[in-house]
C-alpha cells in the first residue's frame, strides 16, 4: 500500500464510536460481508491493482486532480486567504463521480453483473450512469416520480448514458422512497447486483468505502495548499448532505487537531421540526438531529419523538436528506467537526456571490459553505479552504425562481430574470 495514513481505516470496525453498524434485512448481510471483503482486498490492499486503476481512471476519465484555486476576490473581500477546491470540474460536474466510479469499478472486480443506484436530484444517478457506461456495466437508477418531473435534464443524461431510470411512485416520490426502492431491488437481486450508494451513508462497509473514494479531495487539497502557501489551512469548509464531499474534504485533515473542520448544513427556512406535520423545514441533521437508525446505520437523524423519519427541506436538492453519514455523526459527537448551518437565503446569496465575483457558478449545495464563509469569515483564521463540491448549471432554474421571490443582496439586477 502506498499511503500509510490509510492504516487508520483498517480497524476492522463496523462502527465509528457508537455510530454506524449494519441495520439491514438479513438477506443483505452476506452481500455486505462480501463487500467488506472486497473493500479490504481491492481498496485497502490494492489487490489486482484496483486502486491504481481507480486512480488512473479518475485522472483520465474523471479529470483529477482538480485544482485548488486561490479565490482572489473573496480573499480580498474577507481579508484572508480563501482557496477553493474545484470539485465542480470533475467529469459530470460534482465530486459524486469519485464515489460512483470507485464503486462501479469495485463491482466489476467483484464479478457483479449489474448496478443499481438511487438518486434524488439526479446528481448521483448521472454520475453512476456515466461510470457504468464508461465501464460497460448495465445500470438501473431508481428515482422518485416527483424528482423525475422536477429534474428532466438529469433524467435525459442518465438515459443517454444508457441507464434505465425506474420511476418510484410510492410516497412523495423523492429521495427517501428511491433509496427504499433501491434497497428492495438489491434485496431481490443481491447475488449479481451491486448497490452503488450515493453518499457516505448506509450500512458498513459503505461509509468507509465511500470515504476511501472521496478522500482524494482532501488528499489533493492538503498537498496543493502546502505547495501554494507552504502551510496547512486554519479551517476547511464543506457542505453536508449525506456528507460524502464533507468527509472527502475533511478526512486527511482529521489528525491535524488545530485545523477547524466545519460541516455546513442546509438550514432551510427554520431549524425547528414540525412534529405534527412530520416535516423539518431544514436538513440540518448534524446540528439538530437525534440518534437513530436509518438506511442501515445508526446515525443522527431528523425524526419525530416517536421515531418516524420526517421530511427534510432545502432549496438545494442534494442536501435534502433526513440522515447523515455515521462517521460525521461521530466526528461531531467527539467535537472534531463543528456542525453549522445557514438558511436557504444565505446559500442563494453564496451562489450569486461566487458566480459574480469569481466566475464560478457553484452548486446550490456548495453554496451553503460559501454562505457560511460570508457570515463567519472572521472566525475561520487566515487561511480557509472551501470545497466547491459541484457546479451549479443544474440549479439555474431553481435559483431564478427563488431569487424572484426574495430580496437577495448578492443577486444581480432583477431584469436578469426576465424570463419571457
Amino acid at each position, binding site marked *: 500500500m502506498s499511503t500509510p495514513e490509510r492504516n487508520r481505516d483498517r480497524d476492522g470496525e*463496523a462502527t465509528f464510536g*457508537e455510530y454506524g*453498524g*449494519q*441495520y*439491514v*434485512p*438479513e*438477506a*443483505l*448481510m*452476506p*452481500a455486505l*460481508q462480501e463487500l467488506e471483503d472486497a473493500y479490504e482486498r481491492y481498496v485497502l490492499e490494492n489487490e489486482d491493482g484496483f486502486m491504481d486503476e481507480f486512480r488512473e481512471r479518475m485522472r483520465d476519465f474523471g479529470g483529477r486532480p482538480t485544482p485548488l484555486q486561490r479565490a482572489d476576490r473573496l480573499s480580498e473581500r474577507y481579508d484572508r486567504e480563501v482557496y477553493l477546491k474545484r470539485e465542480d470540474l470533475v467529469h459530470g460536474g460534482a465530486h459524486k463521480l469519485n464515489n460512483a466510479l470507485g464503486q462501479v469499478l469495485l463491482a466489476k472486480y467483484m464479478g457483479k453483473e449489474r448496478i443499481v443506484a438511487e438518486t434524488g436530484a439526479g446528481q448521483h444517478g448521472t454520475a453512476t450512469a456515466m461510470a457504468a457506461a464508461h465501464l460497460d456495466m448495465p445500470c438501473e437508477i431508481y428515482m422518485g416520480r416527483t424528482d423525475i418531473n422536477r429534474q428532466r435534464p438529469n433524467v435525459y443524461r442518465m438515459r443517454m448514458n444508457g441507464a434505465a431510470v425506474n420511476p418510484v411512485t*410510492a*410516497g412523495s416520490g423523492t429521495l*427517501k422512497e428511491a*433509496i*427504499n426502492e433501491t*434497497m*428492495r431491488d438489491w*434485496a*431481490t*437481486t*443481491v*447475488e449479481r447486483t451491486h448497490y452503488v450508494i450515493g453518499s457516505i451513508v448506509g450500512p458498513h462497509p459503505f461509509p468507509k468505502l465511500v470515504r476511501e473514494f472521496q478522500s482524494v479531495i482532501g488528499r489533493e487539497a492538503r498537498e496543493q495548499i502546502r505547495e501554494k502557501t507552504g502551510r496547512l489551512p486554519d479551517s476547511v469548509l464543506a457542505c453536508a448532505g449525506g456528507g460524502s464531499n464533507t468527509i472527502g474534504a475533511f478526512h486527511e485533515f482529521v489528525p491535524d487537531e488545530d485545523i477547524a473542520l466545519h460541516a455546513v448544513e442546509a438550514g432551510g427556512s427554520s431549524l425547528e421540526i414540525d412534529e405534527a406535520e*412530520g416535516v423539518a423545514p431544514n436538513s440540518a441533521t448534524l446540528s439538530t438531529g*437525534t*440518534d*437513530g*437508525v*436509518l*438506511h*442501515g446505520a*445508526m446515525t443522527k*437523524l431528523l*425524526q419525530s*419523538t*416517536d*421515531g*418516524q*423519519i420526517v421530511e427534510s427541506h432545502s432549496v438545494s436538492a442534494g442536501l435534502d436528506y433526513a440522515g447523515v453519514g455515521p462517521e460525521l455523526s461521530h466526528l461531531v459527537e467527539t467535537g472534531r467537526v463543528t456542525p453549522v448551518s445557514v438558511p436557504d437565503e444565505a446559500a442563494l446569496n453564496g451562489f450569486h456571490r461566487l458566480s459574480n465575483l469569481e466566475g464560478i457558478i457553484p452548486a446550490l449545495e456548495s453554496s451553503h459553505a460559501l454562505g457560511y464563509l460570508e457570515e463567519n469569515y472572521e472566525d475561520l483564521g487566515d487561511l480557509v479552504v472551501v470545497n466547491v463540491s459541484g457546479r451549479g448549471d443544474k440549479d439555474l432554474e431553481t435559483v431564478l425562481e427563488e431569487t424572484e421571490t426574495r430580496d437577495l443582496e448578492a443577486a444581480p439586477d432583477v431584469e436578469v430574470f426576465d424570463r419571457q
Partner: protein
Amino acid sequence: MTDEQTTADSEIEAAIRENHPALITYITAGDPSLEDTTEYVEALDRGGADLIELGLPFSEPIAEGPTIQAAINRALEAGTTPEGFFELVDDLETEAPLLVMTYYNMLLQYGPSEAQRASEGDAEKPRNEADVRPFVERAAEAGLSGIIVPDLPAEEADPLREACDEHGLDLVFIVAPTTEGERLERIMSQVSGFAYVQARLGTTGARADVSNATHDSLTRLEEYEVPKAVGFGVSEGDHAAEIIEAGADGVIVGSALVDIIAEHGEGNAPAAAALEAKAAELKRGARRGGGVDVPEPEQP
C-alpha cells in the same frame, strides 16, 4: 441457554407446536385505523390464525414490498403512534399469541425523549445500547409474546436480545435464502419462538408460486430444533400446503391479507369477514400440506 430451554419457555413456540401446521398472519396496525385493526385481528383469530404479527408502522419500511408499504403509509396517515399501538394491544383478547413487527428505529426511540432523559441526568447513556428496553418492557406489559425486527440482523441484536430475555419475549430472526454457514448458526443460536424462513430474495408481497429457495432453506434448517415458518409471498391455501409439505412448521401470510384490507377501504365489517375466510382457507391449506385432511367449507 440450550435450544430445549428456549423451546420450553416460549409461548410462541408452544402455539406453533400445538397447532401444527401453524398459520401465522400479519397485518399493519392502524390500517386503516386502530379500531379496524381490533376487528381484523379478532377475525383472523377466529379464522384460524395461530400466531398474529402486528406491524407497528415505520416511515421507511425497507424490507417491505409495495403492498405493505402502502398499508404502513395508510396507518401513519391515520395517526398511528407506538403508544396507540400498545393501547390497542392492551385491549386485545385473542387466542393466538401476538407479535409486534417493526423497524429498529421505532424500538430505539420509544420511551423518554432525549430531552427528558437529559433532565433526568440520563442523557450520557448511549442510546443504541440502552434505549430498546422501554419498548420491550411496554411490549411485555401489553401482552405481546414476541418481536420481529426486519432490519436487525443477528450482528446488531445483542441489546434487544438481552432486553427480550429479561422480559420473557421471543425474538424472531429471519433466515434468508442467502443465509448460510457461520451466519446461519449464529442466527439459529439466537432465535426464539420460531425461525422466520424467507421464501425468496426480495421483499414481502403476494406472489403466485412457491420458490425453490424455500425448499433449499428448509433443507439447510432441518437440523435445528426450533420451529420454522415460511413467509414472503405466500398468498393461497395451495402455497401453504406446498410449504408445509416441504417440511415447514408454519406459513406466514401478510400481503395477501393486507390486500383484502386495502380493497375494502375504511371501517368495514365485510373486510373482517373476508379476512376470516382467507385465514380459514390458508389454515386448511396448511393442514392439507401437513396431511391433516380438512373438508372444504360449505359454499354460502
